[in-house]
């Protein structure tokens, strides 16, 4: 799949450490959605949708098998009296999913919550994507209930194939809506709902790769591969470490430099220069904006938005992927993630506070991308604000970021 290929365009990064701890993260962060519960209302609603999605898929199994085998309610004879109870549970879930999605739509479009409607989410595809999926969920759940309602009516007419399961917990209340219909109309509605449901689910699966809803899959590997190191630690650049070492201790330098040794590139200018984990991050992003809502730079009106960093990375990666699809290999398009998508002003506003990393419910680290791009700005482009230039000079000459004499470093102890 092209997503897999695209993620592998990133630089290799090995994630070692305790596998047990990694599985624990998958369990807590992805299955348990631990970080979602920092904000209670959306956490609970989201949990309904999530649980509904998983459990209703079990019902889907029966629906699909029925389709393949030409049976109806295949599981009903095996489960006996448990069957209607089970279906009743499914119906409750379907209803909670439905209601949750309606509330989600209201939060986005009526209440217009800041986090969900501003900046990079104020229009265009991201906005459509979010609404589209909510409406689809509502339609799918309604179909499920309609299907069961008609089913019950058909049972009462003793239609062929329709096993007597009795009324279903929720759909019995909408059953009267269809009770005037003839057997053939009921059959048509019931079958119609069944087909649209199936087609809807299949369409949804095909739609995933183009949507922020890919997180329902990628949240899991993302939680597994989240860094186990303290988040304050920046990735070491081995090339530069060695360069400094050889400059200070020339006897340690390798005597023979392989002729084909490529000049290392410092930091990241484009998506291919980022770690593959950052690219996985980009595909896993749900565009929820929790990162941006907690970002001190964004809160104080700076251009930086960590959510935009992730969305830009994904958009650029998709563009690079299409470029490869069309040309068999990447052909320079005179564009890059840096500058064409993310500006220096955004990058320079970051305080490296890790609030975005902490806030993200799907274990994404926007800060890594920011810092890698900053490295490129500094070391490849020498694109540095005057004050940082001065700071570097001071550190180099005075061993401190200020213009102070190094011989005064311990002056405080004598005063």
């Amino acid at each position, binding site marked *: 799949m092209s997503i897999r290929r695209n993620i592998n365009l990133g630089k290799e990064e090995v994630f070692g450490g305790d596998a047990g701890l990694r599985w624990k993260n998958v369990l807590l962060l992805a299955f348990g959605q631990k970080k979602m519960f920092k904000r209670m209302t959306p956490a609970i609603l989201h949990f309904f949708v999530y649980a509904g999605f998983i459990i209703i898929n079990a019902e889907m199994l029966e629906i699909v098998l029925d389709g393949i085998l030409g049976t109806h309610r295949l599981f009903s004879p095996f489960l006996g009296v448990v069957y209607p109870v089970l279906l009743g549970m499914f119906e409750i879930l379907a209803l909670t999913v439905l209601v949750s999605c309606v509330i989600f739509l209201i939060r986005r479009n009526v209440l217009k919550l800041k986090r969900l409607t501003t900046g990079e989410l104020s229009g265009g595809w991201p906005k459509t994507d979010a609404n589209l999926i909510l409406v689809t969920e509502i339609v799918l759940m309604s179909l499920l209930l309609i299907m069961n309602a008609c089913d019950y009516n058909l049972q009462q007419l003793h239609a062929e194939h329709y096993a007597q399961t009795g009324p279903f917990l929720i759909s019995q209340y909408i059953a009267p809506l269809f009770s005037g219909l003839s057997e053939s109309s009921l059959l048509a509605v019931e079958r119609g709902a069944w087909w649209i449901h199936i087609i809807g689910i299949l369409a949804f699966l095909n739609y995933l790769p183009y949507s922020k809803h890919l997180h329902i899959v990628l949240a899991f590997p993302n939680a597994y591969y989240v860094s186990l190191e303290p988040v304050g630690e920046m990735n070491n650049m081995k090339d530069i470490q060695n360069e400094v070492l050889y400059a200070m201790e020339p006897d340690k330098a390798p005597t023979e430099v392989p002729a084909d040794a490529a000049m290392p590139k410092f930091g990241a200018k484009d998506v291919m220069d980022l770690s593959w984990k950052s690219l996985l991050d980009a595909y896993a992003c749900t565009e929820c904006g929790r990162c941006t809502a907690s970002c001190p730079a964004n809160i104080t009106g700076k251009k930086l938005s960590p959510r935009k960093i992730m969305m830009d990375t994904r958009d650029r990666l998709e563009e690079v992927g299409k470029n490869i699809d069309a040309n068999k290999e990447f052909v320079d398009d005179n564009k890059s993630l840096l500058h064409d998508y993310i500006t220096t002003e955004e990058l320079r506003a970051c305080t490296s506070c890790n*609030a975005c990393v902490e806030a993200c419910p799907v274990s994404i680290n926007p800060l890594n991308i920011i810092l890698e791009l*900053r490295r490129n700005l500094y070391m490849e482009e020498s694109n540095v604000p005057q004050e940082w230039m001065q700071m570097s000079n001071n550190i180099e000459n005075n061993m401190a970021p200020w213009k102070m004499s190094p011989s005064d470093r311990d002056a405080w102890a004598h005063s």
Partner: protein
Amino acid sequence: MTVKTMAEYMAEGTEPEVLFWVGCAGSFDQRAQRITKAFVQILNKVGIQFAILGQEEGCTGDPARRSGNEFLFQMMAYNNIQVLNGYGIKKIVTACPHCFNTLKNEYPALGGEYEVIHHATFLQQLINDGRIVMKEGGTFKGKKITYHDSCYLGRANNIYEAPRAVLEAMDVELVEMKRCRTNGLCCGAGGAQMFKEEEQGTTRVNFERTKEAVATGASIIAANCPFCTTMLMDGVKNQEKEDSVQVLDIAEMIAQSI
């Protein structure tokens, strides 16, 4: 105040219990020097044999690295590790969370492995061990105090409780801001922002944070980082609250309480 350098210990042929890494702010910034001195005062009072590197200490390279200048970071790290390893240093305490983070998390990959402790944790241990005893009455007893989590001690290194335990040992009335612990809001100084003008925005990060701190009604904002201290003091000035709200490092508070 007794302060000896590593070189002096070496000349005497003795070893200190711990190296106090002062850091650039603690060495040169006038406000942060007061924190440095307060911490030394505590160490002296408790009777801990400590050393500083003195003029052999250099910037850890944290702001260079975060601004994007990896070369300079690597150079500073190389030199510092040479000095530290040359003295056979095993244990380091520092009052700066940025130095703490770099020494603890980033130097090991470069050959510098030490036990590194931030002064919040160090002070908490001394209190737990009964080596720091507060004086009768208590300078800050019952005072309304709010605590600002620095990003590099908090989120970066998951230390939230030690500084609070230190405050509680002084019997203060701790009032938390809404954005605290993992949700704490930055003071605006990290990522080398301290050394440049902020980007264009609607307000400054330190103003936003200080507003929240002042709104708790606390008379003291307790901090654990020399950069936060500077930023918050600026914020208090901006709110014209210098007369009613103080910004103090937890070491300064302890020094005044013993």
